[in-house]
């Protein structure tokens, strides 16, 4: 279970997160929606451990473990995965090598045996097939020369291979056509189960037609201003954030 209480964070002395309260029980998928600049990515980065954000208050625990005290790699080892809104290009790093390095680092941290190249490729090929990702994506350098959609699909591929316990997807749907969107949804839905939870950050209700969330939260001005069931997404789609935020204020 992910439990965020009164979380505050600064960037360059400006407070962006102004006290976030949010709980995602194990086995549930929650959506976070909100206007541009409301702090959604900041929340995702703070949970993943990016160090240009200063946490000034509150707490975030995952299965009772204090996330904020862990290095980013330790959070990953604990089961956290962030699908980046803007995936990073790694020139000179082959995607397969990257994925295997990541998987083995995580396995090592968990005391599991590492996979050799053959074992890894078998697993990776199974996932690329399942997610309709072309095999050559494994051979290319990480995200280099990838289209926006390919980058997002590569994030989902990483998630599928790393099998996190808690996935945070930061606008993984934006810029995708409907087929790619379904692949992303499929990637999340196959992981769904009693031991998996997810925080799906999205701008549009469209993704939530394919990943039905247990709860929907509205983030505005650095706070969760409303929470509700899946129907809240439809309400937002119909009336916009302004009215929802105003209603909450």
């Amino acid at each position: 279970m992910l439990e965020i209480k009164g979380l505050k964070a600064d960037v360059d002395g400006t407070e962006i997160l102004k006290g976030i309260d949010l709980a995602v029980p194990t086995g549930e998928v929650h959506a976070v929606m909100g206007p541009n600049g409301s702090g959604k990515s900041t929340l995702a980065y703070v949970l993943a451990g990016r160090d240009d954000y200063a946490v000034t208050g509150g707490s975030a625990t995952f299965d009772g473990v204090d996330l904020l005290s862990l290095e980013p790699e330790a959070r990953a080892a604990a089961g956290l995965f962030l699908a980046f809104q803007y995936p990073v290009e790694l020139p000179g790093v082959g995607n397969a090598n990257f994925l295997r390095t990541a998987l083995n680092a995580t396995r090592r941290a968990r005391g599991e045996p590492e996979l050799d190249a053959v074992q890894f490729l078998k697993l990776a090929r199974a996932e690329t097939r399942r997610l309709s990702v072309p095999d050559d994506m494994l051979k290319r350098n990480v995200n280099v020369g990838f289209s926006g959609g390919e980058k997002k699909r590569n994030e989902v591929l990483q998630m599928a291979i790393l099998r996190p316990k808690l996935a945070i997807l930061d606008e993984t749907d934006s810029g995708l056509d409907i087929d790619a969107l379904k692949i992303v949804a499929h990637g999340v839905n196959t992981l769904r189960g009693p031991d998996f939870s997810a925080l799906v950050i999205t701008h549009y209700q469209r993704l939530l037609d394919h990943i039905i969330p247990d709860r929907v939260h509205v983030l505005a001005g650095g706070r969760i201003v409303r929470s509700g069931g899946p129907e809240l997404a439809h309400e937002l789609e119909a009336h916009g954030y302004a009215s929802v935020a105003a209603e909450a204020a």
Partner: protein
Amino acid sequence: MSGRGMSAAAQREARASLAQSFLARFEGLKARLPGDARAREAAALAFGERGLPGPRDEAWKYTNLRALAGMAFHEPFTVVAGCNGLLDRLPAIAAPRLVFVDGRLRQDLSRLPGTMRVSGFAQTPDFGTLVHPEREPLAALNTMLAQDGAMISVAEGVDAGTLVLASLAADVHGRPVAFHPRHRVRLARGARLTLIEISLGEGVYLHNPVSEVLVGQGAVLTHVRLQDEAPGAFHLATLYADIAARGTYDGFALNIGARIARTEIHARLGGENAVAHLNGAQLLGGTQHADFTSVVSHEAPSCTSRQTIKNVLSGKSRGVFQGRIEVARGAQKTDGYQMNQALLLSADAEIDSKPELEIYADDVKCSHGATVGALDADQIFYLRSRGVPEPEARALLVRAFLAEALDPIADETARTCLDEAVERWWERQAA
């Protein structure tokens, strides 16, 4: 004395005094030195006039030899005993090899090839025709004092496979020694050779090799050099290459050792469609200094030169790149490319980059560039967010930075040997 605090006058004096000691050594030895005595006298004259290069020598602007000038070098003893385990440090390469210890060819440690002619300079001295002692003071020093070296020659049309040329500095007596091996590699028309040159050692020494390389028409020389000299060593290597029509000199030099290193290359593309690759990487730490200096002369039409140099600099190390591409009047359709990139792993590391183009033909394609940067914080975070610990993430990104330079090395043996050296360097930095 560290030398760093020395005044300009004191530095000049130290250089002059070391130059004098080399000249005195020549006077003492010359009756017994092999080969063309007139060439040696001419070189001694040139060296006597120029002395060791100082900061006023344009070609040595970024590489100050004051630390070298503060040394007193002795003549190496002829070593017959073991080599302090240095042989074990040579990569296990199943190929013929020539092993030099303190500049002397050791037949007993070598495995002679059947596919080419090899001999020691001591037995078959030949100064060749490409070296310019009057221009390059270290080539003059070498010509004056060279005692041994590898004379390698591959006959027309022969694919000679791989040859390892190892230079070991044995530190037998625990005092600084200087050696000046003179190598010559000649590939006749259509011949092929992969030459893997490895320099390593212990103690304090000056390794001042000069190589003459002749690549005949349509011949291909793959020349991979790994310089992993002792931390107290000075490695000043000068290479002159002449590439005939349709010939290829495919060079790569990896510098990870030595206190001060210089890789100087003069390559002349003398026949149509000749190709020169003068690639390299310099991985430095501590207070190491490594200088990659090259001059490529396009003297015939339709030749290609390619050069990518990657520097990875940590600690207070300093990398230097000086590259000049000269295109002669008639050398139309020249294709020249030069890129120097530096990855600075610490705030105190430094890179100096001086690319130059000198073009006298009008129909040419020449470009050069340089980049400097640190590891990218977003890239490190991306890797860490995937569970990769920070040191491993950094190592991965450094290897990625080097990949562009290393990937074109098609020879698997050479590539493995370089990859292992990169790993060793990385482990040393972590230690």
